[in-house]
């Protein structure tokens, strides 16, 4: 991408009917580290790659719990993501306070999408530079959505976003038909396998990734797995790897 005459502010149209500033914000999402989400009839799983700015630094947090029933994986400007995250937590909390029930994931997503859209519509605002995979369980079952800086939001059975996510998406497109009846553990394995396709050096460790799981049944809580808790999943992934089909990416 390079500068042109129509990208100095968000509210200027290009003659081809595009908003370049908004598209630049979408680029920020593509440069963020990858995140993957997928769902079955009973569960929805998020997996994300974490980056560290240097060998000496800690890894950024990529998956956040929003409420007891839902969580989010971020790609792009993490700082913008945290702001949206706080907004979404507030919305969930307010809903719980007034209605004593979890906020439907679709409603939550349309609220952040509306918020993002406002930033594409005001000359003095900057679009959020973050894309989100929002996963949760509500009265309608497990749901997975992706939002982006333009204010769009789409529902998915499986989706990947961020740097080199095409590789993960290719894997998901090949296998998504088996997800509906898959177990939670199988979903996690699919998520990690897809994520691995997008990882630098194709390597996942307990440090550079995390998992988020929301499901009906059990206690219905969104669970965030980080660090050592991931070890069994990664071990299993390594064990299965020999038999897995080679991916052409």
């Amino acid at each position, binding site marked *: 991408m390079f500068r042109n005459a129509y990208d100095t502010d968000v509210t200027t149209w290009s003659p081809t009917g595009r908003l370049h500033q908004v598209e630049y914000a979408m680029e920020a999402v593509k440069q963020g580290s990858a995140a993957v989400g997928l769902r079955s009839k009973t569960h929805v799983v998020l997996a994300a790659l974490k980056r560290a700015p240097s060998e000496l630094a800690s890894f950024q947090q990529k998956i956040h719990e929003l409420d007891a029933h839902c969580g989010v994986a971020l790609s792009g400007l993490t700082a913008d993501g945290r702001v949206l995250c706080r907004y979404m937590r507030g*919305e969930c909390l*307010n*809903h719980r*306070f*007034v*209605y*004593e*029930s979890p906020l*439907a994931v*679709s*409603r939550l997503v349309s*609220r952040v999408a509306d918020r993002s859209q406002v930033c594409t519509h005001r000359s003095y605002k900057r679009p959020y530079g973050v894309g989100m995979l929002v996963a949760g369980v*509500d*009265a*309608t079952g497990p749901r997975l959505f992706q939002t982006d800086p333009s204010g769009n939001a789409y529902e998915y059975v499986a989706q990947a976003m961020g740097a080199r996510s095409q590789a993960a998406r290719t894997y998901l497109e090949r296998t998504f038909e088996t997800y509906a009846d898959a177990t939670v553990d199988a979903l996690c394995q699919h998520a990690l396998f897809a994520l691995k396709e997008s990882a630098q050096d194709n390597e996942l460790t307990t440090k550079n990734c995390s998992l988020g799981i929301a499901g009906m049944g059990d206690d219905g809580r969104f669970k965030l797995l980080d660090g050592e808790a991931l070890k069994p999943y990664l071990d299993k992934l390594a064990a299965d790897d020999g038999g897995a089909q080679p991916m052409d990416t």
Partner: protein
Amino acid sequence: MQPSLPSHHPLLGPDTAILAAQQQSASASFFHNQRTNTAHQDANSNAVLAPASGAMPFTVAPPQAHAPFDAGALAFDAAITNAPPGAPNKHTTYPYVTGTSVLAIKYKDGIMMAADTLGAYGATKRYKSISRIVPAAPTTLVGAGGEISDFQYISKLLTELNDNDVIRDDGVVLKPREVFAYLQRVMYNRRNKFDPLWNSLVVGGVDQATGEAFLGTCSMIGVSYTDSHVATGFGNHLARPLFRNEQRDDMTEQEARALLEKALRVCYYRDKNSINKFVIGTVTKESGMKVSEPFSLSTEWGYDAFVHPTKHALGSW
């Protein structure tokens, strides 16, 4: 000039502001809100100013269901309408047109709720076809005793809430316990502003997903609870003792209906602010939500003591 809505949360709807309510009460400014509606002042500038009521906003009439007609009330109204600029805001201090008890019980298939259709102006039977049991969501009924206009405002809030679900058409609908939780916050937030909605509410329904019946009640200051049987106002004294003896969660529709009719009859005999014109609403998992056409109950007034009230009082006329 825009009318100022009370704490209208843009997403959750009116009267639900959470933090805002605290901020407002912290400033304690609600006692002395300046009137800013100049159009309103102009419209009243020629009116004779009635003496401002010396009462503080919370020195008000008793919460009785049978407020007698009170000429003082008119003076009070004039004091509100003609209040000079800068006078304290006035709030609802007692009800004008009131409904009496609402009764409701759980039974095998769901819940059943009953009330008469009277809107009484003090002791006058003023409106005789008021529906005090209304649908609030696909499987939720709300019934109300107390000030009818306040209940019609509450019905409007609930309609807006439900319309939003219908418009979105995303499979998400309000459940009875969500309606109940919402109404509790509305009632409680209004009492925090010393501007109560003068009602006792009953919320009943069935959770479509689980088939579980729900019954709850909330007063005008936010006292709320759920139970297998509830009743507001006089019903709490007249009907609930019957319910305690006879209501079971597994009773049949016929049994439930018979019990409610028995309770309605007792309430009608003993409560002078009621009429013999009732509606019964039911919510069940199988056949959804219904509110009956108005009906009457057979009554018996031919007891000897009624016909000849002075028969045993020799010497009286």
